[in-house]
């Protein structure tokens, strides 16, 4: 037996103050770049669904209601892994990770955030396409191609493009 090691251990233990923190009675310090609860700003969101496409655990999903003409974007915190890929991918900075981490709730509904955006209609066939705000964003910031084609649904777009190409080819031919 060796009392020396034990004695030194005892002294070491006594020389340390209590390390347990008083949380939750006192707030706990959070570092500057902490990744907590994602929050989506419904005013800024353009409904492009880039966040839903990159989200690894499918916490962000979107659904298009073609009857009523709405796109519903939903963030479910129950699946969120707080990676922050949505924040990286958002073109307008509508979704941001906050420092909030106390997410316990008695109701599952509290864990959902829903954004509802109106869909635009295809100017040719009248079918619902993508949200208005998304088209507006592309008109302003998108590549300078034919702006008209943004107002079409994919089917009409390909038809119109074929027609344009055909006419163009004929013109060149003539």
């Amino acid at each position, binding site marked *: 037996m060796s009392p020396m090691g034990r004695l030194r251990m005892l002294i070491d233990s006594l020389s*340390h103050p209590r*390390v347990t923190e008083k949380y939750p009675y006192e707030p706990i310090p959070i570092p500057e770049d902490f990744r907590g609860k994602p929050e989506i700003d419904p005013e800024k969101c353009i409904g492009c669904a880039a966040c839903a496409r990159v989200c690894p655990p499918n916490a962000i999903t979107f659904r298009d209601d073609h009857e009523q003409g709405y796109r519903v974007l939903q963030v479910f915190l129950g699946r969120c892994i707080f990676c922050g890929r949505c924040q990286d991918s958002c073109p307008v900075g509508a979704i941001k990770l906050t420092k909030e981490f106390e997410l316990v709730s008695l109701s599952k509904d509290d864990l959902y955030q829903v954004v509802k955006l109106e869909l635009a209609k295809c100017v040719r066939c009248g079918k619902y396409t993508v949200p208005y705000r998304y088209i507006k964003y592309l008109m302003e910031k998108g590549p300078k191609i034919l702006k008209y084609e943004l107002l079409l649904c994919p089917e009409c777009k390909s038809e119109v493009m074929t027609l344009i190409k055909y006419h163009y080819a004929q013109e060149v031919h003539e």
Partner: protein
Amino acid sequence: MQDIKRVIEENNGKIVVEHDYFLLVEVSREHVRKLARTLFEAGAYYSTGVGSDERPRNGFFAMYHILNHEESKKYIVLKVEAPEHDLRIPSITPEIEGANWAEREAHDVLGIVFEGHPEPERLILPDDWPEGVYPLRKDFKYNEKVKPVRKEEKFIEREDALVLPLGPFHPTLHEPEYFEIYVDGETIAGARYKGFFIHRGLEKLAEGRLTIHQIPFVAERICGICGYTHMICYCQAVENAIELEVPERAEYIRTLLLEIERIHSHILWFGVVYHLLGFDTGFMHAWRIREKVMDIAEMLTGNRKTYGMSLVGGVRRDIDEDKKEKTLKALREVSQEMKKLFNDVLAMKEILNRIEDVGILPKDRARSIGVVGPVARGSGINTDVRKDHPYAAYKYLDFKVPVYNGCDVLSRYLVRADEIFESIYLIEQVLDQMPGGDIMVERFEVPEFSVGVGATEAPRGEDVHFVITHRGSKVYRWRPRAPTYNNLPSVPVMLEGEHLADAPAIIGSIDPCFSCTDHVTIVDDSTGKILFRGPLEDAIRRLKR
């Protein structure tokens, strides 16, 4: 280097891809066994094996045996193919013991039959999984459900010893694992391992649903302690497959975080081992010190567990001067406190006696099983992926690899103790030398069917990820192999001839990962009945009589 290529070519292997990091060798079924043996004799050890269903591409099933040849600084990937109607490949387990699990797993998930395998039992699929359903075949959907079949539990009976099941849930086992320990009085006469109770099917999920950029976030959740190393390992495998150069600054940041992870993982392990030895004071001190490292990780990555920090092509967050200083300051404190703790503990004879000359794993046995990391280095094998296959920024840095020849629990303890201080030294160099520049390559092309191998030195040993890319930024096959996969088969060897009371420390000494619900049952050898509490006491009394 030339030698190993000559060896491969002389033994009918065809080198298809020659990469800085690995060689892809195609070999026919007749010659695989001889080639594997020759490579093993030339100093390569079995790292892992990957089965793959490549029928959509060419109608064949393939088995990739990945061997680690430290001398030439390369991984050698042996590819053996078998057509669907004749799914037989000669087993290489009789030549290299380490291939045992990998081949059994390939049989479970793909139905490849390994001829001449000494132990052709089910390994990873649960007992109630129906025969003839192979989940990793491409015609099996990732969200498909199978109907379980009922099966009788069976215990192997031994006349000379009492069977003592340890697990599947037990505080000394870090994950739901099951050891059947055969005891003769107080001495362990043998042990059998059964695991994979929490196989999560990540590979299928990744192949079925996720893209290349989503998998890192699944990969880092393979382990709750050393997750970052899995993420980097996956990223490196993809980067090797598509030949992508990562910016130097990103390499340094990756190294920094990998070393921080090693420090906190090792300190955690010391706490666990002290706890297993009944020395809870040491456990409390170790975990108190560890908390400082966790705070650094939280400050640097925004998450206590270094999650969400990297992607294929680089890292997602930069590090500024303020963070550098805070890191160095905290690490100096950690270094001092750990030195003090180690000195105090090693002055205690009662701790030393419990770990010295306990759980012996001889060097030759360690090599043939293919153990990795501190377990191998505690048995006198000088292996470290950071030196043997330099990745990230390790090629620019200076560090020592501690090797001890004791082959016991104490040696593994000392290896980890030394590694903590080496890691702190490495971090100081990283922060000092870190160059400026970009931290991420954002645009790159992903070719189809490109094979990549990535490896990192996780706190628990060599971590290997194997990736075959697919069109549309997906993976065709992804196979992560955690270090414990190679270390666990060595536990029965270590346990043999030891006292039962030392079993927790021995199992703990390989540092398997921690979930704890106490559950011990004793099986009465004659009836095979599981006894609890009351009957358990009766049985013990009966035995004593």
